[in-house]
């Protein structure tokens, strides 16, 4: 008990060491704001969250599996699969005569249900048949990619209801120059006048799920079981945890979040295509590791993972705003990854 309180207080360097990522984000923001004044604004902050939505969701998808000591390589193409399924369903529902709103809602719900299947299969392969996670999810990557290509025949989905784009690119509420507030629809004002848009719909959509699952992971028994499984699977089995069931659940949650990322993509870009999330897998894994999770399992939190994803998102947008090539992002993310691992070894006591 005594040591715990001592460690919680700690000296300043220890405190900084354990929260280096928050400090690093502050430094990044200060740096970009000094170089380009326009960086320091509410709009930029919203833009960073808006552009990062899919990576945030994929990072959480990856986190649940990484905590158990596994990895899910399929999230990018499960996301692509979800973009294809949901966009095709939306078009089909509208063709059947449903209103755009109900078409979008129905298609989204059905997509989320279908999106559980890759996770179930992954989890079953890993938990019951003891296929290494790397192999099981790598196969699923191929399967979902192939099915998506078969569904689209190389042609990204077109003719989605315009409402999808309105929702995906809209915000929760708007403040007109006079101070009038309107929810969900942008007020018509003279050109050149600024309408303040507050919180993109897709960011709210993503964070509803992220908060819910942060609660599940942090506060519920199931969450503690995941850490136990990742920490020492034999001990977890001996202590009576239903390891198979919990492992399957972790992969299903991963798949669910990948599908949510797919829905977010469809609403933003009004199309669906197999490789929509192909380039986001590595960013998602990087976010989890920068957020302090160990690839060996047993550690990592939703909050820190979001901070990890935020580092990447801030770098990308920030470098663009100060007018630098974003190829720098690749280099910097690589360096930060290594730093993250080293710093975590020097200041080990993370909350989890």
């Amino acid at each position, binding site marked *: 008990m005594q040591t715990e309180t001592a460690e919680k207080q700690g000296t*300043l360097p220890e405190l900084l060491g354990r929260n280096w990522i928050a400090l690093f984000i*502050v430094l990044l923001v*200060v740096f970009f*704001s*000094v170089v*380009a*004044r*326009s*960086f*320091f*604004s509410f*709009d*930029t902050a919203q*833009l960073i969250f*808006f*552009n990062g939505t899919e990576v945030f969701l994929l990072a959480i998808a990856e986190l649940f599996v990484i905590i158990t000591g596994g990895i899910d390589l399929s999230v990018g193409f499960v996301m692509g699969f979800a973009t294809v399924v949901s966009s095709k369903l939306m078009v089909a529902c509208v063709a059947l005569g449903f209103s755009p709103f109900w078409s979008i809602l129905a298609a989204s719900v059905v997509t989320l249900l279908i999106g559980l299947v890759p996770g179930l299969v992954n989890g079953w392969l890993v938990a019951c048949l003891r296929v290494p996670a790397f192999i099981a999810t790598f196969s699923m990557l191929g399967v979902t990619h192939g099915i998506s290509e078969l569904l689209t025949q*190389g*042609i*990204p989905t*077109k003719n*989605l209801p*315009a409402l999808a*784009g*309105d929702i995906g*690119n809209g915000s929760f509420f708007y403040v007109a120059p006079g101070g009038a507030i309107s929810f969900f629809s942008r007020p018509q004002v003279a*050109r*050149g006048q*600024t*309408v303040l848009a507050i919180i993109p719909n897709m960011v709210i959509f993503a964070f509803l799920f992220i908060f819910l699952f942060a609660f599940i992971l942090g506060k519920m028994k199931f969450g503690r079981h995941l850490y136990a499984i990742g920490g020492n699977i034999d001990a977890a089995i001996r202590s009576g945890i239903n390891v198979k069931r919990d492992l399957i659940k972790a992969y299903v949650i991963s798949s669910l979040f990948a599908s949510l990322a797919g829905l977010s*993509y469809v609403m*933003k*870009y*009004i*199309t669906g*295509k197999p*490789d*929509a999330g192909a380039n986001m897998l590595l960013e998602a894994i990087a976010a989890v590791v920068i957020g302090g999770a160990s690839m060996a399992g047993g550690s990592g939190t939703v909050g820190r993972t979001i901070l990890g994803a935020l580092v990447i998102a801030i770098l*990308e*947008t920030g470098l*663009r*705003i*100060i*007018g630098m*090539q*974003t190829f720098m992002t690749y280099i910097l993310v690589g360096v930060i990854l290594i730093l993250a691992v080293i710093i975590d070894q020097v200041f080990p006591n993370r909350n989890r």
Partner: protein
Amino acid sequence: MKKRYSAVFAILLILLTVAPVFGQAAKKQLTFLFMPGVQDPFYTTMEKGVRAKCKELGVNLIVAEYPKAWGPEYQVPILQAYAQRGGFDGLLIAPTSVDALKAPLKAIYDKGVEIITVDTFLGDGDYSKPNTDYNFPLSYIGSDNYLGGKMIAEHLAKLVGEKGKVFCEATNPDASSVAARVKGFRDGIAQFPNMKLVGVEWCLDVQQKAQEQTLAALQKDKDIVGIFGTNVFSAQGANQAVVNAGLVGAIKIASWDATITNIENLKKGVIDLVLAQKPGEMGSLGVEWLYKYLTQKVQVPKKVIPGFEFFTKDNVNDPNMQQYIYQ
């Protein structure tokens, strides 16, 4: 501890207020942003046209980062970051989707920036229609892709004696320009009763995929006499498939876009016809119309169509034609 935090916070605040003083521009001068569609020779050639015209008119130019691949998920975040950075009065952009770019571009337009789309367009490309959600750009400046596709079909028909099977290797049906080329080619071939278009494949701008798809088409229809590749990547992939299948000479290949590789292939006899768009001219015209509109409020035509040039073996070394090669 609390004191230390507030000290740090105070320093941050001071930094943030002092910083902007350094970045102030002195006098008002027009600045344009050029937002290309994807990293390829077509858009780098366009950039040269844009650059030259800006220099001539004394306009500042910001060239946005080139997207790594074709698609709104690559282009929109770049565009929005540059919009957030601000400081430009006009925007020249090649939208990578007819739908997905509407909302982000409308937001930029609402801030007071004038927009011209080059090479590709929003909606159906007709900005003169009232009551659409895409009639805000000043103009679309680009090739008449439908006409180009049709002209390619006619030239190719002549080369193969107006009979036989032909195949089309295309890129991305979500790009307005490519879809129109394919439609034009289809209609062009339909004019010849003894010719048949046996297939259209979409390689999504991946050269390797274009090569595989063309090879598969050649295996399915062994008597294909002509192929049309609709852009840089699809044409180069189709070329490679024909070379690998040992069918150079037996199959006439028409290519869209006068890239250095296509021109060299033409010289070697690997391909037979190259349509050159005028990306440099598109860029240059875009800058000119934006400038005229912003300085003199001149009425801008809603559509500006630069013509085409055709390269064949006979004129490829003509000094007058060299300006149309993308480099």
